[in-house]
């Protein structure tokens, strides 16, 4: 029983990282932009938040927890949005190939983040490993009372920092926004058929820019959560963020572009990713097989969805295509 609770908890923490990434990417893809730079954007979010609070904690004798959180969130969101802006500028205004631009962004941002991560470690001196203890602790503060009461249910539902609930809230809000508001309807139209949206008087370029930048901002929070909660406020350049970033891209497909489906999908991915750790008697070799599971599930979902031919579960029709009004 304890093992199962522990697995679920690990799955939810893991899932939250990719849920941020996937929710942001879903918003971006709804506008018809396929940003394969998600891992890079998550790198940017992680490193920016870390740099921000590192300097705050270093220069303040008694750091305030709320200020720490605000600085981390703000830095992560803004720098990730800048990453999204770069992607938008290249693909929307200059009409560069989205796949190439996205992959390049991932490579660029990975190098960028690890460079500054390494520099931070050096700045921190001592053991060569930085730690923003106060902020990390703030991020990991659970709701007082609830996590210890209620027994195992409390442990499964309430033993996390606030970012877990923020991720759910953002996903639910995004689903509602896309499906119920006029702006959401317009956004879907832009991703499906920009020429139609344009003829209907929708400012296609504006929608694409906003969706891509805000989407990147949300994705970047995944990187921040990874650094502050998952890594407990340290930087580690082993490429962990990148691996999770690709899972986030897979999750968008798994959830068939539905943010709410992404919530449980992300936890499922999390549980599947950690399963190898909890199954007894696995060798190093068979462990790797179990690590494949999330990707395997995505492939199966893709196959099932394609077989069912359901038009409601398809990617936005013009996903990955540039739009130019006067193209003939």
């Amino acid at each position, binding site marked *: 029983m304890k093992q199962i609770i522990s697995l679920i908890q690990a799955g939810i923490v893991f899932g939250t990282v990719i849920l941020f990434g996937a929710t942001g990417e879903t918003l971006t893809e709804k506008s018809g932009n396929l940003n394969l730079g998600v891992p890079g954007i998550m790198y940017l979010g992680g490193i920016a938040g870390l740099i921000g609070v590192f300097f705050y904690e270093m220069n303040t004798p008694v750091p305030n927890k709320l200020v720490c959180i605000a600085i981390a969130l703000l830095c992560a969101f803004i720098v990730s949005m800048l990453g999204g802006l770069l992607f938008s500028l290249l693909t929307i205004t200059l009409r560069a190939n989205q796949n190439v631009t996205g992959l390049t962004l991932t490579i660029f941002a990975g190098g960028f983040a690890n460079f500054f991560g390494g520099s931070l470690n050096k700045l921190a001196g001592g053991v060569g490993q930085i730690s923003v203890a106060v902020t990390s602790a703030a991020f990991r503060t659970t709701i007082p009372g609830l996590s210890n009461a209620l027994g195992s249910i409390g442990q499964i539902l309430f033993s996390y920092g606030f970012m877990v609930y923020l991720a759910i809230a953002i996903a639910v809000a995004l689903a509602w926004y896309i499906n119920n508001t006029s*702006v959401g309807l*317009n956004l879907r139209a832009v991703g499906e*058929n920009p020429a139609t*949206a344009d*003829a*209907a*008087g*929708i400012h296609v370029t504006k929608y694409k820019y906003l969706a891509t930048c805000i989407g990147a901002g949300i994705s970047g929070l995944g990187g921040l959560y990874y650094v502050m909660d998952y890594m407990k406020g340290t930087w580690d350049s082993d490429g962990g963020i990148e691996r999770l970033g690709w899972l986030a891209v897979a999750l968008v497909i798994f959830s068939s572009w539905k943010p709410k489906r992404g919530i449980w999908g992300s936890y499922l991915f999390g549980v599947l990713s950690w399963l190898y750790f909890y199954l007894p008697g696995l060798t190093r070799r068979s462990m790797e097989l179990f690590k494949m599971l999330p990707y395997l599930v995505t492939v199966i979902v893709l196959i099932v969805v394609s077989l069912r031919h359901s038009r409601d579960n398809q990617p936005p*029709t013009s996903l990955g295509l540039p739009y130019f*009004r006067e193209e003939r």
Partner: protein
Amino acid sequence: METQKSIKLVCITKTFGEVTANDAVCLEIHAGEILSLLGENGSGKTTLMNVLSGIYAPDGGNIFVNGNKVTIRSPKDAFALGIGMIHQHFKLVDVLTAAENIVLGLNENKLVDLKNVRIRVKEICDRYGFVVDPDRKVFDMSVSEKQTLEIVKVIYRGADILILDEPTAVLTPQETDKLFAVMRNMKADGKAIVIITHKLHEVMEISDRVAVLRRGKYIGDIPTGDTNPQELTDMMVGRAVSLNIDRTEPQNLTERVTVRNLTVRDIDGVKRLDNISFTAYGGEILGIAGITGSGQKELLEAIAGLQNIEPGASITYLPREGKQVELVGKTPQDIKNLGVALAFVPEDRLGMGLVGNMDVSDNMMLKSYRSGKSVFTDRKTPRELAQQVVESLEVMTPSLSTPVRRLSGGNVQKVLVGREIAGNPALLMTAYAVRGLDINTSYTIYRLLNEQKMRGTAVVYVGEDLDALLELCDRILVLCAGKVSGIVEGRTAKKEEVGLLMTHLGEGAKA
């Protein structure tokens, strides 16, 4: 009644790179009037209307609404002035419902309020006689339903100037009649309507006034009552053109291809062709009529070797020289080498047969690059052929090295059909060869097909325009839902008879 609207376009100029699509065009549009905009392919009709509806920005010229100069920078500006355009390729989002498509981009409320939309859509439908189900998704709709939705959408947005770009190109005769009835209702309601069409009999039937464009220039306008098809054609082309299809009596009929018990299923296992049998003779034109998607494409592709054929079928073919051969089981390449040519013009024109990013001569080469002994391809012959096609069919292109994608739709088609005919086939199959082509080019293509027929080629002509089918073809095979609904004589059959066979299985199906 609101004030009578009028629109005046003065000296509109629009260029795409080196091509001048509109050259100082002036045009007036009045309320309560149906204006036909007539012109050959690439004469700039659609471009002009795209300028008016804010899709293209003009390079020069002014637009006046009720005497006031206006600037239309985007479709939104056009809506605000009451201008709405129904595009040839529908501007609808497939995965959304009718109601969602209607309110798209309007932002009337912060939240989407479909209840209110349904009520207002019903009002519009009742007023003009439309039938639209607001909760149906667009991907479930037929072409004619989509078109109705487009019109309702534009009226919902308060348009009182409606521009319809080739609205009848995709409709059956019955659907066209329905559309015209609705257009008359709208005219009576004081709306101004501009209709772009190539079909002269429709111009005569529906419009009050005709404006003619030729090669981007405005030629003139004339009340429909004061003119006739011949005069309009001459205005459009700039010289006298004969409007008769010379249908010679078929001579030396030889059995060219005989299809027996042909059944084809698609990927989902649905029968697209069901037990089709017929014979096409060299020296005649066999027309194939049917509602779009009744199996025309599959039939031609089956003969060309591009479809998986169910067992039990036979397609025997007699080349110009040599013995009868069985085509079932042969590769498309073999079939092509036996003298079977297929010119299929799909809806997007570039989907099959031509490569958009390649120029005219390279597209000619697609057919010939395998021939020749050297490792290097022969570029000279295709270029000569391209030159010849461009000249004989009057393809409007800045040069032979312009990518085909940049040409207007009609010109793209001329390149495709011209290439297939140039191959000197024994069996020439064309599908929608004149789709969207102007009258002059259409007749050029009819003439070319007739020349092929006189040379003893078996011509299979899949067409949409029943009038043209009845004038051109010696026999017409009517398809209905993948079955042969009947085979009629082109010289004696009535349009209504064919129309009926298209929608209901005739006696031919039982045989």
